[in-house]
């Protein structure tokens, strides 16, 4: 339910209001920061954009969100607003033009501090074009059917933005009627109408750039040269408001005026808005808001003491809910629901109402029967009613013959002709069962009169009055109703609902398990469904044989219903003692409540020819207008901002987030200017929430969302019944972290497998190398041992020993000691990979001693190690010395000199002079080869072998 809480305003105004005074509601302005508004526009999403003397705001019904302005705009005021291509365009008093996206990210105001909010707000960007912007006030924008963008200025004529180029239309060069443009509007024929100080110019620009102008002046039907406002309606008309001669309507096809206001004491027209084909609401420069009834041309101003009577209205805007927005002098914003208003009729306690076929109103009160005496204005001034009968009139009926039947309290029925002349009276004297006639209904032949004593019937010409439905007993009948199929329904007090069909009476005494006793009111909708109300059981709908029941649980304001009617748009109007509901009969969950002071008197409702519903109450008459135009009747949800980890993100373009961006806040709004406070939200994060959540908050937060696909859905309702309500949604995904991505897992598996494989291969290779090394070493040891226990060596050694054992026993002892040292060393070192150079040299020393004793001066070993330290493979040097001895001639005349030295290059060099034996000793060439391989296997530097003519040189790397 949404409600208009303006009881106090109503009480203050209703005494003096003129016909159809809308009730203005001031809008909350604290968030404006004192800005004076100048112009208001509703965009296609439903937001209200308000231009101000300093600034631009977006309004959601609750607060104004400031839009950041570039410096160019800072000192100027907004003079016009327009929506095109998803942007709001703002024209300024200094000629500047800016634009801002409608659906950008509008992060909520977190601090309430206007300056801080400005930093968060979207920015109005300067429209930058090569041609430069006008220097005079921008008064209007429009777009023609080719998509060209037109700009009106006050002083520089018109500009057109077409094919990315700006062109000008002015008075001197192009024949514009004046350079001072007040307003622009485009018609369906592709023309742009420019309202100027000197008339209207109809401008077109062809694709080739050819300009065409046709001017309309006084001779063409304009009442005034100065045309200040233009409004193109969707029925092929162009409305023009002038400076001092009122309003004229041009037919766009013929360019002829098809309507104009007659006399105009109201001053300049500043803005226009039209409701269907019925009503034009006019903002004026000094006379506030006017209403023009388009059926009659009647113009009504607000009453003289209304605060909105003698003011300047800057801007008017009709919103999608049917509210009329007005920017008043002093820059204040007001809204009014002009569909609902009070009729200053001068009548009070209206008990019954009738709008006859000619559109004239008949009203019955305790004082008498009143007839509207002229139909010039459908909503007349109080003096338009005249009293035609001094009776307490409680029911009215218009017969198909156009006669008006008025039922009184106690004195029967009075029948009038359409002009209000009394034709006849039917009373108890003529046989009426009771003189108090609560309701009258009938057809071309028969009339049923519901009285406090039962029902009487009579012929429509008033003859043959009879006691009608005796079977209804003598109970009260509050209402008798003949439906479109010719059936007659009786709302009884105590016996439920009675139906007379084919001369048989049938009683409905229970429905949906509820006992039906007292029925107050009944009506029929366009689909033939019967709606009836009870004294306190709520509302029932009968379709075929099926009942539906509506109670306060369905959103009814109350279960005490005083009357029912169906308006021209098919809405069920439900009267209560304190207001009325509008029920959308197609969407039966949907109700809108209007509070109306003293409520609605019992069955004091009527529908006029256009379909408006009029309700009588203690204070007079209320209108619930049914304009031939549809309005939005739900709050419109809109996601306004999304923030991730408390930082707002551009959610229109960003939809994918990383796994660490998992704290989401969604801001949303439900645009429902009729009653912004009543909006309820229902939201659900698809992919996370199992159920909908219902809340009044404007945000939903989700900390710590796991990776996945999500859609945030939000719906709005103003009564809490989320049935067939509009929705906004936003889809996004949070990516799985790197280590949960399938490709990463795959890649990791592949690399791990690769690593293991590489390790295994490496290890195999190493093991292979090690085993080879081991084999080499074993072979080397074997060879060494084999060579050292080589019989030649032993034989030679023993021969040497024999020669010295006798002549020099002590030397012989020494010789044996060296021999044994030599063998012990071989055995001691064979298992080791490396031995120190020093150990090796000791070994070589022993070996050399043995050789020297054998060859005497034929063999010489020279070692120059200069204290070099390091390690070599065991027996490496010994093997080289042995090789030298093995392959060369050794004689005193040709001594063999073996040199062992270092050159500080990381090698130890073994060099001997070459004097090859003529018959070389049998050799496996194993020793040197084995040394080279072993060094290679251990990953050391390679052994270098150099043989030139004179020397054989082997360089063995020293391991440090």
């Amino acid at each position: 339910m949404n409600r208009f809480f303006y009881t106090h305003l109503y009480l203050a105004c209703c005494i003096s209001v003129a016909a159809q005074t809308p009730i203005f509601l001031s809008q909350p302005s604290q968030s404006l920061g004192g800005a004076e508004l100048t112009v208001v526009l509703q965009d296609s999403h439903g937001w209200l954009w308000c231009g101000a003397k300093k600034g631009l705001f977006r309004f959601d019904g609750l607060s104004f969100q400031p839009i950041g302005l570039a410096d160019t705009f800072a000192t100027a005021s907004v003079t016009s607003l327009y929506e095109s291509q998803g942007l709001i365009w703002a024209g300024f008093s200094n000629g500047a033009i800016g634009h801002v996206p409608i659906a950008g990210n509008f992060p909520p105001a977190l601090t309430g501090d206007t300056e801080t909010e400005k930093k968060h707000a979207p920015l109005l960007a300067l429209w930058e074009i090569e041609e430069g912007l006008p220097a005079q006030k921008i008064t209007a924008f429009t777009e023609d059917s080719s998509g060209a963008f037109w700009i009106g200025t006050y002083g520089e004529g018109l500009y057109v933005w077409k094919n990315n180029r700006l062109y000008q239309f002015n008075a001197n060069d192009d024949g514009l009627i004046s350079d001072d443009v007040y307003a622009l509007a485009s018609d369906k024929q592709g023309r742009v109408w420019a309202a100027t100080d000197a008339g209207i110019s109809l401008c077109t620009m062809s694709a080739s750039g050819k300009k065409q102008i046709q001017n309309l002046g006084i001779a063409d039907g304009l009442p005034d040269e100065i045309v200040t406002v233009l409004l193109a309606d969707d029925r092929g008309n162009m409305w023009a408001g002038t400076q001092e001669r009122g309003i004229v309507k041009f037919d766009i096809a013929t360019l002829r005026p098809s309507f104009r206001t007659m006399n105009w004491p109201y001053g300049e027209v500043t803005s226009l808005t039209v409701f269907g084909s019925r009503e034009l609401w006019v903002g004026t420069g000094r006379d506030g808001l006017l209403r023009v009834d388009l059926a009659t041309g009647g113009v009504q101003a607000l009453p003289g003491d209304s605060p909105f009577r003698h003011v300047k209205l800057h801007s008017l805007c009709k919103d999608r809910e049917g509210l009329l927005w007005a920017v008043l002098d002093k820059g204040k914003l007001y809204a009014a629901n002009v569909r609902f208003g009070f009729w200053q009729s001068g009548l009070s306690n209206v008990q019954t109402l009738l709008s006859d076929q000619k559109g004239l109103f008949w009203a019955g009160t305790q004082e008498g029967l009143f007839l509207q005496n002229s139909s010039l204005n459908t909503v007349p001034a109080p003096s338009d009613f005249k009293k035609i009968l001094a009776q307490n009139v409680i029911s009215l009926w218009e017969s198909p013959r156009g006669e008006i039947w008025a039922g009184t309290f106690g004195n029967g029925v009075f029948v009038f002709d359409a002009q209000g002349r009394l034709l006849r009276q039917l009373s108890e004297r003529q046989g009426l069962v009771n003189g108090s006639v609560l309701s009258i209904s009938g057809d071309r032949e028969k009339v049923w009169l519901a009285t406090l004593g039962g029902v009487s019937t009579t012929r429509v010409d008033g003859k043959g009055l009879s006691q009608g439905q005796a079977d209804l007993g003598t109970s009260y009948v509050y209402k008798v109703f003949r439906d479109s199929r010719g059936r007659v329904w009786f709302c009884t007090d105590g016996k439920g609902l009675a139906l007379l069909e084919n001369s048989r009476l049938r009683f409905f005494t229970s429905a949906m398990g509820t006992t039906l006793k007292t029925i107050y009111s009944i009506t029929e909708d366009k689909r033939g469904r019967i709606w009836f109300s009870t004294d306190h059981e709520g509302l029932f709908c009968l379709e075929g044989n099926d009942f539906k029941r509506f109670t306060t649980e369905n959103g009814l304001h109350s279960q005490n219903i005083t009357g029912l009617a169906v308006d021209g748009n098919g809405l069920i109007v439900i009267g209560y003692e304190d207001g009325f509901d509008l029920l959308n009969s197609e969407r039966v969950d949907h109700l809108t409540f209007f509070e109306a002071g003293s409520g609605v008197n019992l069955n004091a409702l009527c529908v006029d020819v256009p379909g408006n519903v009029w309700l009588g109450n203690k204070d007079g008459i209320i209108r619930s207008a049914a304009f031939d135009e549809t309005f939005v009747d739900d709050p419109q949800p809109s996601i306004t901002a999304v923030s991730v980890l408390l930082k707002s993100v551009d959610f229109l373009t960003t939809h994918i987030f990383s796994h660490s961006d998992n704290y989401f806040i969604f801001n949303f709004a439900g645009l429902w200017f009729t009653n912004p406070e009543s909006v309820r939200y229902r939201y659900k994060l698809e992919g996370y929430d199992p159920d909908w959540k219902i809340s009044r908050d404007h945000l939903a937060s989700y900390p710590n969302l796991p990776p996945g696909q999500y859609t945030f859905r939000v719906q709005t309702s103003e009564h809490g019944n989320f049935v067939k309500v509009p929705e906004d949604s936003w889809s996004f995904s949070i990516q799985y972290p790197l280590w949960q991505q399938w490709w990463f897992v795959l890649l990791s598996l592949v690399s791990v497998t690769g690593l293991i494989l590489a390790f295994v291969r490496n290890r195999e290779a190493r093991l292979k190398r090690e085993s080879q090394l081991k084999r080499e070493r074993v072979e080397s040891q074997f060879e060494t041992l084999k060579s050292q226990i080589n019989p030649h060596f032993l034989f030679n050694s023993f021969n040497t020993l024999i020669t010295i054992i006798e002549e020099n026993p002590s030397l012989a002892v020494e010789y044996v000691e060296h021999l044994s040292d030599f063998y012990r060393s071989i055995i001691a070192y064979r298992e080791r990979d490396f031995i120190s150079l020093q150990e090796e040299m000791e070994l070589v020393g022993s070996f050399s001693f043995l050789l020297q004793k054998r060859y005497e001066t034929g063999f010489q070993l020279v070692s120059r190690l200069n204290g070099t330290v390091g390690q070599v493979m065991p027996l490496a040097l010994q093997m080289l010395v042995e090789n030298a001895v093995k392959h060369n001639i050794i004689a005193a005349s040709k001594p063999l000199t073996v040199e062992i030295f270092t050159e500080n290059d990381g090698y130890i060099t073994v060099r001997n002079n070459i004097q090859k034996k003529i018959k070389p000793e049998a050799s496996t060439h194993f020793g040197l080869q084995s040394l080279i391989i072993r060094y290679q296997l251990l990953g050391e530097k390679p052994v270098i072998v150099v043989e030139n003519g004179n020397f054989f040189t082997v360089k063995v790397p020293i391991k440090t």
Partner: protein
Amino acid sequence: MNIKKYWLLLSAALLFCSTGSFQMSKTTSPYRCDNGKVTFKSEATLETIQARSNKLRGAVDPTNNTFAWSVDAISFDGFNSALQREHFNENYIESSKFPKLTFTGKIIEKIDFQKDGRYTARAKGKLVVHGVEQERIIRCELEVLGDKILVHAQFTVPLDDHNIRIPHIVNQKISEEVYLNIEAELRLTSS
């Protein structure tokens, strides 16, 4: 809003004022120049072509805010090659058929030429290039210095607007839009 009503009065007053100062005014004769600089620049993907002329002739009439500019197409020089200049004159601009590039029209803003200072103004007029006339609004910077006006303007000329067709292969060398840069110093002429 009551412009209509006060129009007569206003124009009478204006007429009186303007005739009053008419004799004293220096704005009775036009400003002229015949050595203004025009730079032409085409930035295509493969080549940037620049050429200039120092023979821009112009006149600004402060009494009615009108102006006229003209430059001979053959006076452009400084192309990347002599052949390019020949192409410019023969293939594109067709200098023999359309010898002049002109821009004539009115200044939209009212400028007080009697008061020294810098102004940003928009010139609305007809740009004739290659014999094709296009209506253009061109923004320019004006600096009034005694009896001199310095004018600086920058704008683009889409070749298509002026029926200058670029063969397909050449369009990597010549851009669809060329930039023009105008710098001129106009002096009050004693009439």
